[in-house]
């Protein structure tokens, strides 16, 4: 069964550094998402992406964040200058169609900012 994959599984970075989290969505899916979960808190929506542009973003997704689909398979989340409060689990998801269709989640990347 096809799965969403994410790399790395754990990323440690120093405050102020740039990080890129990578995701490979399911191959025939058209919609892509990033969510994050700070330890002990809710899973929160960050951004959705379709047809090479952002279709929706939350207030969390400020200018420090960007997303890109650099090729036909990868979907990346970049944090330009990490802060301590960016430490969280970041989940990538994809869906075949848009609103209210099942989103398939990856295993997550644990980002630790020191």
């Amino acid at each position, binding site marked *: 069964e096809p*799965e*969403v994959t994410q790399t790395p599984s754990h990323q440690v970075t120093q405050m102020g550094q740039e990080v890129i989290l990578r995701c490979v969505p399911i191959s025939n899916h058209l*919609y892509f*998402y990033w*969510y994050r979960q700070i330890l002990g*808190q*809710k*899973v*929160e*929506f960050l951004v*959705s992406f*379709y047809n090479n542009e952002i*279709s*929706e973003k*939350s207030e969390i997704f400020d200018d420090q964040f960007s997303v890109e689909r650099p090729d036909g398979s990868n979907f990346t989340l970049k944090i330009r200058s990490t802060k301590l409060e960016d430490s969280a689990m970041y*989940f990538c998801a994809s869906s075949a169609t*848009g*609103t*209210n269709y*099942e*989103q*398939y*989640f*990856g*295993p*997550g990347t644990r980002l630790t900012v020191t």
Partner: protein
Amino acid sequence: AQTVTQSQPEMSVQEAETVTLSCTYDTSESNYYLFWYKQPPSRQMILVIRQEAYKQQNATENRFSVNFQKAAKSFSLKISDSQLGDTAMYFCAFGTSGTYKYIFGTGTRLKVLA
């Protein structure tokens, strides 16, 4: 604001018994969707069951069923004949037409005891 609340941070159940996980939500929307996702330890979230708000019949998937009470804005998950493989974090999630994001609860950690 739309919210999802899971009031049981942790639960345990004996193997072969039945357990019910609670979820309540708040929305002014009339057209929405509800989901239960399961996240086994160190694995990705997978969809367990979904319910469309316009359907009066409760969704069922094998040993998993929901009790959807629209007026009360309640969406509980019942797991029958619990198995050790059901041990996981369970997330309730909510989505509406016209938006791509899911809103998640904080999760319930379920442990099935042998």
